[in-house]
């Protein structure tokens, strides 16, 4: 996170604050996010209940707050999983070359051809709704870009003389990969990894919106939006709250690593 203009640095501080608050605010809030009181349904915002009540009389603020660590955590977990597997595959492909590389990269192409939502949909049917299929579906969708990027970087680094020098010194392969290749690969892919968390939040909420998210009544932003959609005119605040939560957290991840180029790089073919 070195460098950047003061504006960018300020944005980073704001982003980190937003994410930290989002991830922890539920800890200090009293009350059960699933507690319902049908008589309070659609009650508007008030001071103790700033986002009002939903169609089942549940406190929307509580639900948004409790959904945050789950959505953010799940998204981050998807990326971590995809990232670790992706760069491992990428580095192995680059190091081994030949058939291994060709086979691994065709596998990656195959995953790219497979629509991520469809994969999650299939897996949800297969494993039942819940975090498991979301994790697998989204991770498998994200993994190819990390594998490709890290293969490219690892390929470049492996061609550098310091790797050759290390090989000539007779070091073990794992030592060479760890000391000479891993860090440059992480450096070149980590910003995109962090940016992808934003995308993963979008995917998690999209799946939630399609009804494939976490089992009810556990709160989840996408599911909350789809639940509140019919009441758009009656309960606009209750609908807007999870929308804004998604928007802000994705925005926060986007600004964690804003440089001149990074925004576009995330979606860039490698």
């Amino acid at each position, binding site marked *: 996170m070195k460098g950047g203009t003061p504006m960018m640095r300020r944005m980073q501080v704001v982003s980190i604050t937003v994410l930290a608050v989002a991830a922890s605010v539920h800890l200090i809030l009293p009350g059960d996010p699933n507690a319902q009181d049908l008589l309070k349904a659609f009650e508007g915002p008030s001071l103790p209940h700033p986002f009002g009540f939903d169609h089942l009389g549940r406190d929307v603020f509580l639900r948004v707050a409790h959904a945050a660590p789950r959505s953010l955590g799940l998204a981050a977990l998807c990326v971590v999983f995809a990232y670790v597997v992706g760069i491992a595959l990428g580095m192995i492909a680059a190091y081994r070359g030949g058939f291994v590389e060709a086979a691994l990269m065709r596998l990656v192409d195959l995953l790219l051809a497979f629509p*991520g*939502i*469809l994969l999650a*949909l299939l897996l949800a049917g297969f494993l039942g709704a819940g975090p498991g299929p979301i994790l697998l579906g989204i991770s498998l969708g994200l993994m190819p870009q990390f594998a490709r990027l890290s293969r490219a970087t690892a390929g470049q680094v492996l061609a550098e003389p310091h790797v050759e020098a290390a090989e000539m010194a007779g070091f073990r392969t794992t030592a060479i990969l760890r000391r000479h290749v891993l860090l440059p690969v992480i450096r070149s892919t980590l910003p995109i990894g962090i940016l992808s968390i934003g995308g993963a939040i979008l995917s998690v909420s999209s799946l939630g*919106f399609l009804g494939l998210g976490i089992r009810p009544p556990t709160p989840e932003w996408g599911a909350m939006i789809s639940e509140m959609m019919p009441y758009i005119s009656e309960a606009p605040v209750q609908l807007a709250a999870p*929308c804004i939560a998604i928007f802000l957290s994705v*925005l926060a991840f*986007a600004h964690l690593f804003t440089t001149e180029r990074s925004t*576009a790089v995330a979606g860039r073919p490698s």
Partner: protein
Amino acid sequence: MIVGRLAQTALVALTLVTMCFVFVHTLPGDTALRIAEARGGSEFLNVGKAREIAAEEGLDRPILLQYGEWIERIATGDLGMSLVTRQPVASELWNRGQNTLILGIAGWLASYLVALPIGIYAALRPHGWVDKISSFYCVTMASLPSFLMGIGLISIFALSLRWLPPAGFRSWEHLILPAATLALGLSAFSIRLIRDTVREVNGAFFITFARTKGLTASAALRENGSRNAAIPIVAFAALQFAAVVDGFIMIETLFNFPGLGDLLVSSMLSRDVPMVMGAGLVAAVGYGLVNLAADLASLALDPRLSQRGQ
């Protein structure tokens, strides 16, 4: 290269279709019962009826045999009949595929018609107001899930202003909102890429050197820049086009658009095995063809690729 790409496409398609097949068959739930429900509705479901369907359609035979038969049929170009509608899969795929293709092309084209001028202008006037506004736009759009964009567009243009229909596909007006949803999402990334690429090319030394030959800045950029910038942009555009398949499921659901994504999901839910496999095949082949087109475009644009073999 083309042959290689085609072979790869065939391989991807086969694997994808096989995965679809395996998935549909390993999904929990009784296939025949699902088909019975899809045919006759959720009420008065009957296990006996499901058994009849299973016997009629041969669903109780060994899975490998069913798979083998499908592969054998596909080799002769026959996609079979839908288990649910009992209509030919091919004609349904053709109808839906057409719709999806029209939607995809419209959304994709619209996004580039907007992104190209904005991206180029922003690149030539860095830190100007177009650059700033477009950066803000990109970050904002990239932070919104596509379903929220779609809901927003429906609320404004269909429900409040009543300019455009909210759902279905009966006229070109029905195309505007889903295509716009698609375009907004795509342009968030393409504007940035175009801006960065054009800026990079504009700063390349061969542009400066061309200017030392006596060319004006705009002439140098036009003559030496456009092709160099086009290479990564075209590659990215093709990648985005191939990636819209993912967006279709959401957008077609949201707009009740009779396309391939919607078909894929509904046939998956109703366990319409031949339809799922057919749709998977079309998706994979489509993806492969788009990539092939991208390769050909790169080949045409980048002499380093086309002349290497000579």
